[in-house]
């Protein structure tokens, strides 16, 4: 049964008792507790095992910097490992478990590592597990990972949901301590749009841990009054439980807001966390300072805590962290802790100050036993400290030792744009340098200010700077009365003279002063190298308590000053952010938007198998009853289209409306072939080049009027081409009178192909619309009406090589049109076909598509060199004439068919001569597209072969060593089927 360590006072809600379990044992706490404060209130100090040596560990801090007390909260898939008990809010029936032990927390079998510690120094893995090399991945690493580590994920998908959001502010205040609150208050009063964010669930920062007054109000009252006023400003947003974890470009701040971790399951809102991107014109960083420990023998025993934390547990959480608390300090804040503990009724067995004398010693109450000018030699107690032995030999009884080695400003965010901190001898710590992220201002102890008055004065200055920057009227400095004591500190990094003692510097990574010394001996002189060799400052706490201490010890080793030694650079995130929060809603089917074609619903109802084409889902084939293989479906669709009529949704192709007095000149300039003389009512195939002369895209462009064109692009390049055209219009030829707009979404467009295509269309075109071959020949286009007056566009173009049309109607009619065509086309044998059949038919016809237009082929490569019109200007003209792109012995698009029709050609295979080795030196080209041709009854392919257009009839090999397929193929014309093009003129 645990003892209650509750004392009077505090900011907990005693009217709201809560139950929770830790490692299966039931405990009690109150609303307003953290897991750490509730455990300490139950006198539980042993809460963790250390990372490497599995040493017993307790709670060191009271905040986000906690290195030891990492817990797994919850159970099953909901279990959240590595949660810092010091910031985890307690809720009713919370399940808390310790981590990283084999057996119980009390008796961890892996504690044997502690006995083996002489062999497990820094760099141990690198030096030891070198042979045999193959063992590293299979044996050494798994064993090491099992032995050393943090908590484990469930292995299942994270059941929590995460969201993202965007907020904007004139001023973002980071940190809700007194500096941040004052900043928000003054800025709010001045009318700025303010967001105040703090990682804690309660605003107040370090003032919650202290006793003091501002303007004759206690800290607690001043905080409450300030929050009340802020809550009444509609232009001020308060964001508790929100960590500003990164400073990004242009005043963008990453903020993780916790919505549900503090609530029992039944009360949780849908989203666990929100990843906010806050765009702020100015920001004030008021993140305060973090206390740091001192290295001494066995300074990691449970019960050894930071002095400020002991003070916070007493003042904020009403918890005595021990019955006999000893305090070790080198600065004035340790003295404040002693005074507060005394006031709270906690027994202070000794205040040990490494300074022989200090001004602050003068005012100490007589009840406190001051031992000045002494330091700690060692401590006793494996699972809870029992006593402290000083260098002078004095032994002090203590079940809690509060240590203060000074304060390090929480300046991490100031480094996110590569700002370098600078050393400040007055506070013996790094403070932000001058190169802050643009728009970031500072206030409070993050600057090194150590009195409340100084912090508040800085808030006024920072707000006035922001107001001035934003062109607003500045405020006059208010009169502020608050504690304004001078702060004194004397550097103290290590204590104790025993050279064999292990003095921990980084408790999270089990890095001791000996490891730092060893790293130095082995030549690691840069702080960045020290970090990586020893692992100091890694993992979840990122060295918040260890960084400065480690640097100081490194400086001692090298004989350099700490300023000269420098510090590692801090990068985002400030504290851990779940990967799920970065992903937000973008998971599963919501990973990215999906574009659905107008016939999608109909296709779904008819067993379409869909394929992603860019963001689109397109039907690739329609499986019919009895078909067990996709090839059966595709072959059937091809044969039906070529023998009767097929229909395919081609709405996904890009469509660009081009209008204006200079539309004709514009189209003629963006295509390599001539369009100047294209008559109204006609369509032409166009080849578009990039500036570098390579082919960018192809498609047909129809002239609907004197100054009106509709360009089609490939599905994949629709956006790219539109962007290119806008660049040409706005950047290259700004004087042309041309207007562009995409109409891809506006129209549902169907390809209707096959000998019966005209007959089918005749069933729906309105009276007076003549689509006979004479009136509407190959490549004709026009605006018609169908189905009693519905406006449509008809293009007589063919990708399949059949008599074919593309019919476009406003998208609202897309679903109805496919249903109608399929219905009335039944007597004609109509068959829907997907992208696979489309591909087969275009390969049979030798039409290039994405595989051939891959950005690395020229018009000459494609056999379209003659399309480059020498009598006009066009994009890419000069570069397209480069010798390398036009040489006669360059690659040319050809057809390939296997000598043995039973052999299939592999896409991606390389062309090599018969008998030649399959090497790069012998490479003569590649296979770009392959298909089984139901018309030719063999595998066929398109590919690029050196001088291919002069080698028809030659047999070469299509070698695919990756898949072990090596086929003899004959080089043929790419026009496999109906090379004369009789069918499309039918």
């Amino acid at each position, binding site marked *: 049964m645990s003892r209650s360590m509750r004392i009077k006072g505090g900011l907990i809600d005693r009217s709201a008792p809560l139950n929770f379990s830790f490692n299966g044992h039931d405990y009690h706490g109150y609303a307003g507790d953290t897991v750490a404060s509730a455990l300490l209130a139950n006198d539980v100090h042993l809460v963790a095992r250390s990372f490497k040596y599995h040493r017993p560990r307790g709670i060191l801090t009271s905040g986000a910097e906690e290195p030891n007390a990492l817990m797994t909260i919850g159970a099953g898939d909901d279990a959240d490992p590595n949660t810092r008990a010091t910031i985890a809010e307690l809720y009713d029936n919370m399940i808390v478990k310790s981590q990283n032990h084999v057996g119980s927390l009390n008796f961890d079998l892996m504690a044997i590592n502690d006995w083996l510690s002489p062999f497990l120094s820094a760099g141990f893995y690198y030096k030891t597990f070198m042979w045999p090399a193959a063992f590293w991945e299979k044996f050494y690493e798994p064993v090491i990972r099992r032995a050393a580590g943090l908590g484990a994920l469930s292995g299942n998908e994270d059941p929590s949901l995460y969201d993202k959001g965007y907020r*904007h502010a004139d001023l973002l205040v980071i940190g809700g301590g007194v500096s941040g609150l004052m900043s928000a208050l003054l800025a709010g009063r001045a009318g700025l749009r303010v967001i105040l964010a703090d990682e804690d669930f309660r605003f107040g920062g370090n003032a919650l841990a202290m006793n003091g007054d501002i303007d004759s109000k206690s800290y607690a009252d001043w905080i409450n009054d300030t929050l009340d006023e802020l809550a009444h400003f509609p232009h001020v947003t308060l964001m508790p439980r929100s960590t500003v974890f990164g400073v990004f470009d242009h005043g963008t701040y990453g903020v993780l807001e916790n919505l549900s971790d503090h609530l029992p399951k039944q009360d949780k809102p849908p989203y666990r966390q929100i990843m906010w*991107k806050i765009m702020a014109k100015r920001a004030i960083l008021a993140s305060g300072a973090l206390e740091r420990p001192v290295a001494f023998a066995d300074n990691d025993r449970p019960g050894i805590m930071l002095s400020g934390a002991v003070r916070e547990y007493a003042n904020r959480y009403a918890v005595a962290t021990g019955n006999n608390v000893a305090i070790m300090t080198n600065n004035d804040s340790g003295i404040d802790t002693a005074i507060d503990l005394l006031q709270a009724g906690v027994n202070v067995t000794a205040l040990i100050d490494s300074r022989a004398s200090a001004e602050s010693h003068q005012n100490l109450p007589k009840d406190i036993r001051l031992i000045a000018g002494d330091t700690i030699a060692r401590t006793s107690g494996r699972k809870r400290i029992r006593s402290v032995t000083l260098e002078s030999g004095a032994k002090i009884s203590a079940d809690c030792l509060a240590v203060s080695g000074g304060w390090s400003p929480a300046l991490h965010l100031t480094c996110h744009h590569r700002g370098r901190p600078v050393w400040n001898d007055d506070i013996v710590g790094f403070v932000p340098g001058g190169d802050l992220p643009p728009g970031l201002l500072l206030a409070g102890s993050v600057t090194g200010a150590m009195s409340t008055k100084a912090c508040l004065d800085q808030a006024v200055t920072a707000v006035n700077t922001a107001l001035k920057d934003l062109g607003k009227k500045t405020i006059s400095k208010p009169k502020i009365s608050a504690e304004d004591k001078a702060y004194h500190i004397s550097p103290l990094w290590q204590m104790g003279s025993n050279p064999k003692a292990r003095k921990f510097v980084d408790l999270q990574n089990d890095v001791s002063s000996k490891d730092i010394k060893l790293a130095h001996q082995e030549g690691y002189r840069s702080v960045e190298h020290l970090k990586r060799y020893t692992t100091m400052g890694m993992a979840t706490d990122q060295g918040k308590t260890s960084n400065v201490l480690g640097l100081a010890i490194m400086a001692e080793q090298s004989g350099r000053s700490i300023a000269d030694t420098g510090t590692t650079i801090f990068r985002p995130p400030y504290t851990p952010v779940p990967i799920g929060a970065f992903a937000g809603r973008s998971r599963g089917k919501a990973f990215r938007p999906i574009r659905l074609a107008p016939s999608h619903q109909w296709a779904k109802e008819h067993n379409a198998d869909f394929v992603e084409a860019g963001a689109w889902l397109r039907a690739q084939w329609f499986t019919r009853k009895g078909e067990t293989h996709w090839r059966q479906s595709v072959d059937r669709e091809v044969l039906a289209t070529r023998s009767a009529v097929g229909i395919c949704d081609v709405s996904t192709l890009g469509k660009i*409306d081009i209008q204006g007095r200079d539309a004709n000149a514009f189209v003629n300039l963006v295509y390599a072939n001539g369009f100047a003389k294209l008559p109204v009512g006609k369509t032409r195939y166009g080849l578009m080049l990039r500036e570098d002369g390579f082919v960018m895209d192809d498609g047909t462009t129809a002239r609907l009027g004197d100054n009106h064109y509709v360009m089609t692009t490939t599905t994949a390049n629709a956006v790219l081409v539109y962007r290119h055209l806008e660049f040409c219009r706005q950047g290259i030829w700004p004087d042309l009178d041309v207007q562009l707009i995409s109409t891809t*979404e506006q129209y549902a467009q169907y390809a209707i192909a096959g000998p019966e295509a005209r007959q089918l269309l005749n069933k729906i075109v309105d009276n007076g619309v003549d689509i006979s071959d004479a009136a509407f020949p190959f490549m004709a286009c026009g605006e018609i009406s169908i189905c009693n007056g519905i406006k449509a566009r008809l293009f007589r173009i063919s990708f399949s090589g059949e008599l074919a049309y593309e019919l476009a109607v406003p998208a609202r009619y897309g679903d109805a049109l496919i249903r109608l065509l399929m219905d009335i086309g039944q007597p004609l044998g109509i068959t829907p076909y997907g992208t696979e059949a489309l591909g087969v038919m275009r390969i049979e016809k030798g039409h290039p598509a994405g595989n051939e237009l891959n950005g690395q082929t020229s018009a000459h490569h494609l056999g379209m060199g003659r399309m480059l019109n020498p009598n006009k200007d066009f994009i890419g003209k000069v570069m397209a004439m480069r010798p390398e792109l036009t040489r006669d012995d360059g690659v040319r698009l050809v057809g390939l068919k296997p000598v043995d029709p039973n052999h299939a050609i592999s896409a991606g295979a390389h062309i090599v001569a018969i008998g030649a080795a399959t090497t790069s030196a012998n490479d003569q080209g590649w296979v770009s597209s392959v298909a089984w041709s139901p018309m030719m009854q063999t595998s066929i392919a398109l590919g690029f072969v050196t001088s291919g257009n002069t080698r028809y009839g030659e047999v070469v090999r299509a070698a695919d060593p990756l898949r072990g397929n090596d086929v003899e193929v004959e080089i043929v014309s790419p026009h496999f089927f109906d090379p004369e093009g009789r069918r499309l003129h039918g």
Partner: protein
Amino acid sequence: MASQLTPTSPLSGFALKAPQAECAEQTGMAIISVSMAKSGAKKLASAMKGEYGVALPLPGQYVAIKDGMIVSSARDQFFVCQKTHPDKLLKTLLACCSGAATMTDQSDAWAQIMLSGAACTAIMERLCHIDTTSAAFPVGSAARTSIEHMGAIIARIKPAAKQTDAFMILTPRSSANDMAHALAHTPPFFSI
């Protein structure tokens, strides 16, 4: 002769209701893009003033017209949106603006969603990266932006009676389902 084709709306009548917000697909709005011709600014402004009695909206704004609005949709481009048949609106615009601008039917390219209620801004800040608070984006504002990686045109419109706030969202037809999904997964519409 085949029967008349039945139109379908992009979202098949999608609608959501929550205590502080509602959203619903709107249909029947014709949208015609009006792209200004070179040197056509004055003539277009005059034509629109004559036809609708309003000045063309500045970038980032829309102006209300009878049964609709004119939205600044891009540089030298406006979307005229009006509750009428697209052919009728196109005809009207061709009659008044030809020579000063070119017109293209966009009525079927966009799904239109009306979002209304006190939670509008809270919903928008979870979806859209631009500042949609009433201070920065008051009634009369319009923006071409993106929501959940989808292009969108948004406008804060004058709320109907009994409503406190309202947005019109235009989103491409083909991905409109994902826009509806995004809205449906935003509090207060979303609950588990």
